[in-house]
């Protein structure tokens, strides 16, 4: 039996192609049903996200056949000819497929390396397949291992540390100053797109009070309404600045609109409680000298991008260690799977010896009709114990040896020695 994956992702295809191949969650059950019909003795899992569409299958077919089936499946469900997406496809089988899944789950193959969302998506894909009874034993263990590997990679490396988008970096910095954002006030100046994104991220993290100030009061009111905030004209800024714990500025002003003196006075009025200033405007809205004030932390767009790039670089530097963990775990999984081949032989050997013991026991008990119930039970228990003791060492050794690739001969020998049929 083989494990195989066929799919495409953001490295190999444009978004237009991925959009056509993607399988929305409402179509997944039907798609999984069809895969079950294609691989009746195995299983399949479909991972469909905005950056990748992949189908994992485990079947009693050679890898080429599984890949052909998966290609046909994708063509059928997308309504496209195989040739339309064949060039964008990647196909892996057995160890390479295992390693690929581990990398995907650990976010080593993501567009933003180390992002945490993919693990949830892999988990959802697994649960969807499980709900349709499309997960067999091997795929079940494979995906459970993938979740464990992803967790290992996150705890043993720094791959998931630090955000890599400007808005998320701004939120991270706000949290590193204030920890709890629930009782904090955000003052937004202007209505730039990045500023709004940063505001949305802050509101998502619990910020409850929003003040929007704009030269055009109507613009301020529109944005304030969306975030249930208060609207101000820019003229009221000086008198309200001290209320803000976080200031996001993204106006189109050609000259700075807030200066050292404004923040100095604001700090005095707020008893020197810290202010985090995010100036995303180009040209900048806040005089750079503001950062010389204690308790004012000013970040402009370049600073935020620099932090994002540093975080990204830090993640990339961890990639080698993360891959090492993934490859080690892929080897472990392959050993477990190899050992699985010996399982029928192990079960057969155990059954055979117990059957012999049962037959001999029956003969002996017929010759001893005067035994009490308790004595009979003792003799039966004795015979089972002898068989188990005889089996213990060979079974342990066999399980150990079976994990190696050259275990086929040993398994074959066991089958011959104990007369176990190939299909057993």
């Amino acid at each position: 039996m083989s494990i195989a994956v066929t799919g495409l992702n953001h490295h190999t295809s444009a978004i237009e192609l991925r959009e056509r191949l993607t399988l929305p969650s409402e179509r997944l059950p039907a798609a999984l049903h069809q895969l079950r019909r294609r691989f009746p003795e195995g299983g399949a899992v479909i991972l469909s996200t905005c950056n990748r569409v992949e189908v994992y299958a485990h079947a009693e077919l050679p890898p080429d056949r599984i890949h052909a089936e998966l290609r046909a499946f994708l063509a059928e469900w997308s309504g496209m000819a195989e040739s339309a997406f064949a060039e964008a496809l990647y196909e892996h089988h057995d160890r390479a497929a295992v390693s690929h899944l581990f990398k995907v789950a650990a976010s080593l193959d993501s567009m933003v390396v180390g992002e945490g969302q993919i693990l949830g998506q892999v988990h959802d894909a697994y649960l969807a397949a499980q709900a349709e009874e499309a997960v067999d034993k091997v795929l079940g263990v494979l995906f459970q291992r993938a979740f464990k590997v992803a967790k290992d990679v996150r705890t043993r490396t720094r791959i998931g540390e630090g955000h890599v988008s400007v808005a998320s970096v701004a939120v991270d910095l706000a949290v590193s100053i204030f920890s709890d954002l629930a009782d904090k006030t955000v003052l937004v100046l202007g209505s730039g797109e990045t500023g709004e994104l940063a505001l949305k991220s802050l509101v998502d993290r619990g910020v409850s009070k929003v003040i929007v100030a704009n030269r055009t009061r109507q613009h301020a009111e529109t944005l304030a309404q969306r975030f249930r905030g208060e609207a101000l004209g820019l003229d009221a800024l000086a008198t309200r600045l001290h209320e803000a714990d976080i200031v996001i500025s993204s106006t189109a002003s050609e000259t700075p609109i807030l200066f050292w003196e404004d923040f100095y006075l604001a700090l005095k009025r707020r008893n020197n409680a810290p202010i985090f200033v995010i100036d995303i405007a180009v040209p900048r809205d806040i005089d750079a000298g503001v950062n010389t004030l204690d308790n004012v932390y000013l970040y402009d767009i370049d600073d935020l991008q620099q932090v994002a790039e540093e975080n990204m670089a830090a993640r990339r530097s961890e990639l080698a260690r993360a891959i090492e963990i993934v490859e080690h775990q892929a080897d472990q999984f392959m050993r477990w799977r190899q050992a699985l081949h010996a399982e029928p032989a192990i079960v057969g050997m155990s059954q055979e010896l117990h059957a012999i013991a049962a037959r001999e026991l029956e003969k002996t008990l017929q010759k001893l009709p005067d035994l009490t119930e308790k004595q009979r039970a003792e003799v039966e228990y004795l015979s089972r114990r002898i068989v188990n003791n005889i089996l213990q060492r060979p079974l342990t050794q066999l399980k150990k040896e079976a994990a190696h690739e050259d275990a086929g001969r040993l398994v074959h020998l066991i089958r011959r020695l104990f007369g176990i049929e190939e299909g057993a």
Partner: protein
Amino acid sequence: MSIAIFAAFFGAVVLVCAAAALSLAYLVFARNDRLLVGAWSLGLGACLLLGLAGVLRAAAWGKVPLTEPIDFINLFLFTVAMAAVGLTRSGRTRALLAFYLPPVALLALLAAAYAVPDLGSAPKALPNTLLIAHVTPAILAYGLFFTASLTSIAYVFQARRLKQRNTAGLFQKLPSLENLDRTLYTLIGLGYPVFVVTLTLGLVWAYLDRALLSPTWWLSPKIFVSACMVVFYACAFHGRQLGRLRGPKLAYTLFVFGAFLAVYLVLKTIAFSEYNFWVAAQ
């Protein structure tokens, strides 16, 4: 009883060293909260054993053990370790253990190396209960101040990294500035009244037992440092309360005064080790 005292003290030293190693491993290696939970649990164990060592010494000799260096260090370490585990109960501030526990471990090792013979000997008796009531909170207040100084290092580190836009690595593992500021405020808020009580009791004792003291007792460096300490505590606490001394200013002030105290302690050990009120009185 002696064996139990030694076992409790050395057990505490081992636990606090292990806790310090775990907390540093968290800072240096990957972010793994289990390391901090382990450090916290071991730190709590060390606290309990340090407390037990003190209680056992009191029980063994029937005196409150406060006069020997090992007793002073034991109570001091107990205070700092207790403050550390108390302040880091929540996961948000637990990384501070990496600032608290290594110095505690270092002091514990030094104590184990130099002051341990005192563990088996009887402590001197303090002349009266008032003096016991004066010395005990003094050690507690110095312990709380030491903890605040260590917290200020974390604050200065975080604030500087934020200003320099260097927010990778360690920065991401340490608590937020707000949490650090709150921790500093809590520590000086606890230490200040304790020190005021210490000083008041000390002055009452000095007045009542003035016959025992030399006429120039107030020239003792200890008195000078105590006066500086109470002024400092008052400035720090009220300054922070009013918002005048907040954030980096408070942290730097604590750090500088902590350094001043450390220099004084070194000088006292080297140059003034023989000086005390009783010697002056003789």
